[in-house]
């Protein structure tokens, strides 16, 4: 599979008001997305997921780092960003605010066509996109207003609005978090079908590991502005290597579950990134004395740990305690 997107050393900082110093919301991200894959980007609230995908489409300026999309480095000029935003579409975190209540569904989907001056007969493009998003027959939905359709259908409208531009990459921020359990499965199925039929890539930002199990090819786990583990979804979920990934999996609510590792301690604060491994103040390996027994505790406390790839390159982990399996 060929590479569509490559992020290298991406940093995004905010100036914090009230607090001292800068907020290192995205703090050195290396990540690739292949063509035709679903990548689930998971991690705690505030770890920088939204900031990262906003940076990908230039909505947040990078402090440093580079983004290569479809073989070309992304420049930051207004014109280039405009062109990029047609090929990279974003579905925002909160769908309730995302649709103008006074615009019909037709207008909502046509808006992108007008903004980007897309060639072609508008009504047909809109109809195709609505049908593609599962709103069939499209004519029935076009004249309706957002409040006249269900929450799941509104999410389909947003997906149609993104797909109408024929993007190569869809950035979906919590695409099903606000949806019903019953509708959730249908939207996830739609996303998977879009990937399998059009070859588009999807980065799905989520805190829902079940989503990753349901539709993702790969999974990237983010902690405090960094990726700490990335690999094939099935492998990461079946055999998590990073202690943070393990903790995340342990708190997935399931009727018969393993023992929970609820991480306590300070809520991670990107304005005060801990020294050494940024996870060490909350790390169960440190708390249990395991890191001490392994003789790595000093490194955990003082050496910032980088992502290390397995020989085959399918799995990367950033942890002093982890030896990667040989998949080469």
């Amino acid at each position, binding site marked *: 599979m060929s590479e569509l997107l490559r992020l290298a050393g991406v940093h995004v900082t905010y100036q*914090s*008001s*009230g*607090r001292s110093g800068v907020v290192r919301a995205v703090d050195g991200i290396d990540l690739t997305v292949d063509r035709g894959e679903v990548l689930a980007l*998971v*991690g*705690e*609230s*505030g770890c920088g997921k*939204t900031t990262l995908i906003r940076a990908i489409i230039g909505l947040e300026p990078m402090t440093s780092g580079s983004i290569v999309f479809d073989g070309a480095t992304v420049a930051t000029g207004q014109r280039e960003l405009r062109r990029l935003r047609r090929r990279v579409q974003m579905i925002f*975190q*909160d769908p*309730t*605010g995302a649709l103008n209540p006074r615009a019909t569904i037709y207008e909502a989907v046509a808006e992108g066509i007008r903004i980007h001056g897309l060639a072609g007969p508008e009504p047909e493009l809109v109809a195709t996109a609505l049908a593609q998003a599962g709103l069939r027959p499209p004519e029935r939905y076009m004249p309706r207003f957002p409040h006249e359709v*269900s*929450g*799941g*259908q509104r999410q389909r409208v947003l997906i149609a609005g993104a797909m109408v531009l024929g993007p190569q990459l869809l950035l979906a921020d*919590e695409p099903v*978090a*606000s949806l*019903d*359990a*019953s*509708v*959730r*499965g*249908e*939207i*996830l*199925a739609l996303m*998977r079908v879009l990937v399998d039929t059009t070859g588009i890539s999807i980065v799905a930002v989520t*805190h*829902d*590991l*079940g989503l990753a*199990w*349901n*539709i993702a090819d790969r999974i990237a786990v983010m902690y405090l502005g960094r990726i700490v583990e990335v690999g094939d979804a*099935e492998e990461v*979920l*079946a055999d998590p290597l990073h202690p943070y990934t393990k*903790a*995340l*999996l342990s*708190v*997935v*609510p*399931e*009727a018969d*579950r393993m023992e*929970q590792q*609820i*991480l*306590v301690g*300070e*809520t991670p*604060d990107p304005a005060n990134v801990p020294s050494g491994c940024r996870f060490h103040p909350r790390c169960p390996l440190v708390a249990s004395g395991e890191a001490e027994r392994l003789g790595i505790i000093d490194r955990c406390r003082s050496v910032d740990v980088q992502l290390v790839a397995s020989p085959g390159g399918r799995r990367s982990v950033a942890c002093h305690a982890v030896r990667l399996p040989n998949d080469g």
Partner: protein
Amino acid sequence: MTILELRDLHVTYKSDRGDVPAVRGVDLAIAAGETVGLAGESGCGKSTIAGAVLRLLPRDTIVGGQVLLNGDDVYELKPGRLRAVRWTAAAIVFQGALHSLNPVRRVGEQIEEAIVLHSDRGDAGTHAVRDRITGLLERVGLRPDLARSYPHQMSGGQRQRVLIALALACEPDLLIADEPTTALDVMVQAQVLELLAELQRDRGLALLFITHDLSVLSTTCDRLAVMYAGRVVEEGRTVDLLKTPQHPYTRALARAFPTIGDPRSRMNPSGLGGDPPDPTHLPSGCPFHPRCDMAIEACATADVLLRPIRPDRAAACVHVAVSA
């Protein structure tokens, strides 16, 4: 001690399209220290029940039946008593309220306002109130210095915790949490659920936990009530109900959240076809029958009410055998 009791609650909204019967006969009781989960998909009437408890529905809404809060009928209370009851007897963490925080005021000030306006815990700016703000923020797992932040400087999860702190500002007996963890990641969710459990143990807080996410309810609630089209269609003790769901709707809901590692759901998300019913045009018979994979002819004509199966267990389905 029973904190909240709903007796045959009916709620009908008035709208341009005519009457909207959103809640159609719900009985529910919550004791101190108990967590009851209310599940069901969008539009089934969950938030309407929350609003009905504190009389927060539009003025022209028709409410039938009774809502008893600490034994008092909420709909008989004088305006002064009603104001006192809100916040101190029961408080609501509203659904989707992440944007209800005032964007131009620091969150600490907003918590302060709730404390000062709704309790007798002191005046703005005093040490007592400031300590209380710090205590509330710590209790919901936020750094106290975040009191100085504006809502837009916080992540979605951080804002949600501020809202829970707000609801706790006046130490209510009953907390109604409407989709309180839906916007949160699993770790914060686990923390918030633990926090709510703690509040219950230590203060005997009663909790009505509203969400469409059965998996969250599975680990937190003593009892569950599953709603469909304005009615409870199945209820029971949590473990019992999830292990042997009797109503086909409960079964579909339970399947929607995959068990990680289960090969049947890998690359195979499971949903429930069709749309939730429109309360103004309910299907005849059992309102679930058009989407039900077990429907028989009788389901299209005969409406089925909750049937007791055994003590603490009931379901509204024609396939359920009534206990002797």
